[in-house]
């Protein structure tokens, strides 16, 4: 069930009526039933995966919770008779036992994700190696379909199990609550990756709901629809044409594709999360924000703190920090300090080793293919280079501060944000083209003047010719758009920018609902009319699933 379908709107309205009319104690169970109904639309076979994950998570968390409770009781009961050393040893034994339970849980859940997501990738690479050594034997691909949202709910689940192990949260003993945490439907399409500690109270202990949450949530959903249908799906037409025909669309077309993909991805992913957060809010559930104006970031590291925040913090808390404080990294760090390396390098190398592993995993999480792995490693390289050049930047700004442009001035911030967008657009080509060789060839064509060739032949010329247009008009036709699309996309970009600027001073919806009645209703009607009139529907448009749904 697509978020942007009539079926979803009908499901959401019916679900809200049932949920809000039901007794408060029954609401978590209603929400669970709604979530499984929603998920079953992706295929009944998908339900088997989420249900199995739930059973494993429930057993593992309840077991760890019981062990913790037993330890606490024993230590409290025997605090007068146990020596400090004995208590410490008892705690250490308990931690080791809980760790074994956690490892079983991690192997089963991450193992499931690995099987459905990476089996064919592994087989393809083995077959390539067999080719290299001249073997004629080939392993057939397994062709396993990936259940919707599995990357998101498995990560939420892993976070929950680790948090129970760390005693950061107390696990629920109600299996239906565990099932609801894992399957809460607004998050199944494209996240965000929620933490148990952030969302469980709202899910399991609902409060009486007023009209306010309904109004604010509905406005957020409407805004999400506008971003997705008016902007993202319109830009998608050109992006698909350009990246789907890399031999035809070279040079300046590649640049246009990169710019349009930056717009499409932003409108698509943030629009989808708006729908998720808005829908959850209408049920009285607070879902964490996943973006903080990412395109205003001064560098790539800052961008990753503001884009898909729940994924970044997940990797930080469950991969980066544990790995950084593990024995191996501490040993490497100790050895480097004793070496002849400069102090700064000895300090940074262990951090970079850990960071490289995290970015490799981030790439792999996005997709089981080399283009995503390379994308992850290039992100790491850009961040590392930027960190290493920091002292140089500081010297430069120290020397020229005020004479050229101050780093805290608006023009410099605009330059830095533009630079970040350009770098990220280049890296995202690996995602758009889906293949490392094609990406490099398309990127190279920007500098080798492939535009003339593209404009003169094949699909691009055909489209431009059919439209009977030359110059800018011909270019627009060649990428599958018309002037109307361009006006809508430009207006959409300006509105997105203006809303982002307003967000810096606080909630836009809060101010909207505090505005005079006529203005408030006028704006809401204008957004709704824009979705209906300017949404990219009908022939030539592919009302598609959200980009992040495939991850």
């Amino acid at each position, binding site marked *: 069930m697509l978020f942007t379908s009539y079926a979803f709107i009908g499901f959401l309205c019916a679900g809200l009526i049932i949920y809000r009319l039901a007794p408060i104690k029954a609401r978590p169970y209603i929400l669970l039933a709604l979530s499984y109904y929603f998920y079953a639309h992706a295929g009944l076979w998908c339900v088997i995966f989420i249900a199995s994950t739930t059973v494993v998570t429930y057993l593992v968390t309840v077991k760890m919770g019981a062990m913790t409770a037993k330890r606490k009781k024993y230590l409290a009961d025997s605090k007068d008779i146990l020596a400090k050393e004995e208590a*410490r040893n008892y705690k250490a034994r308990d931690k080791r036992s809980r760790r074994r339970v956690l490892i079983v849980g991690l192997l089963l859940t991450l193992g499931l994700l690995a099987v459905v997501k990476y089996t064919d990738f592994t087989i393809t690479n083995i077959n390539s190696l067999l080719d290299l050594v001249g073997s004629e034997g080939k392993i057939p691909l397994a062709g396993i379909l990936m259940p919707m949202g599995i990357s998101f709910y498995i990560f939420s689940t892993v976070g929950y199990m680790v948090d129970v192990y*760390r*005693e*950061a949260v107390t696990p629920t003993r109600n299996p239906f609550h565990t099932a609801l945490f894992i399957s809460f439907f607004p998050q199944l399409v494209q996240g965000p990756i929620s933490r148990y500690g952030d969302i469980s109270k709202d899910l399991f202990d609902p409060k009486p709901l007023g009209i306010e949450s309904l109004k604010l949530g509905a406005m957020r959903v409407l805004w999400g629809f506008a971003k997705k249908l008016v902007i993202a799906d319109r830009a998608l037409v050109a992006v698909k044409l350009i990246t789907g025909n890399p031999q035809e669309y070279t040079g300046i077309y590649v640049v246009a594709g990169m710019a349009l993909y930056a717009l499409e991805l932003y409108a698509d992913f943030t629009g989808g999360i708006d729908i998720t957060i808005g829908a959850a809010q209408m049920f009285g559930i607070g879902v964490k924000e996943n973006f903080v104006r990412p395109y205003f970031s001064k560098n790539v*590291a800052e961008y990753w*703190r503001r884009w898909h925040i729940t994924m970044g913090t997940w990797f*930080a*808390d*469950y991969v*980066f*920090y*544990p790995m*950084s*404080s593990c024995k191996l*990294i*501490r040993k490497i*760090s*100790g050895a480097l*300090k004793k070496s002849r390396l400069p102090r700064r390098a000895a*300090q*940074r190398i*262990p*951090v970079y080793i*850990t*960071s490289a592993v995290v970015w490799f995993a981030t790439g792999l999480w996005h997709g089981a293919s080399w283009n995503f792995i390379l994308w992850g490693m290039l992100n790491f390289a850009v961040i590392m280079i930027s*960190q290493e050049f920091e002292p140089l930047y500081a010297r430069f700004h120290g020397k020229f501060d005020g004479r050229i442009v101050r780093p805290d001035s608006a023009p410099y911030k605009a330059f830095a944000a533009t630079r970040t967008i350009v770098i990220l657009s280049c890296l995202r080509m690996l995602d758009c083209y889906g293949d490392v060789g094609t990406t490099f060839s398309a990127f190279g064509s920007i500098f080798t003047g492939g535009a003339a060739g593209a404009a003169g032949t094949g699909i691009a010329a055909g489209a431009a010719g059919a439209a009977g247009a030359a110059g800018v008009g011909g270019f627009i036709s060649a990428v599958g758009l018309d002037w109307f699309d361009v006006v809508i996309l430009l207006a959409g970009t300006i509105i997105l920018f203006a809303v982002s600027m307003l967000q810096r001073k606080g909630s836009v919806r809060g101010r909207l609902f505090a505005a005079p009645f006529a203005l408030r209703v006028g704006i809401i009607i204008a957004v709704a009319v824009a979705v209906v009139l300017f949404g990219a529907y009908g022939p030539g448009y592919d009302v598609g699933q959200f980009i992040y749904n495939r991850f």
Partner: protein
Amino acid sequence: MEDYLDVVKQILLDLHPELDGDEDRDGLVADGILDSYDIITIITQLADEFDAVITADKITPENFDSAESIAELVDEILNE
């Protein structure tokens, strides 16, 4: 705890010389002064200086938000 505080402040100053004179401030994480790279550097330095192993569950924004909270963390770990 006072023993650790001076070392922690020195580590912070090595990483962020701009904190000179302002080492007692809080909000180091909340205000974005310390990033994940800085935190890991602090952790490895504390392991070297005091043999204090800070495990991942102790790496929270609150524990790293000021020199004092970091020194308290070291104190807590060494007295566990």
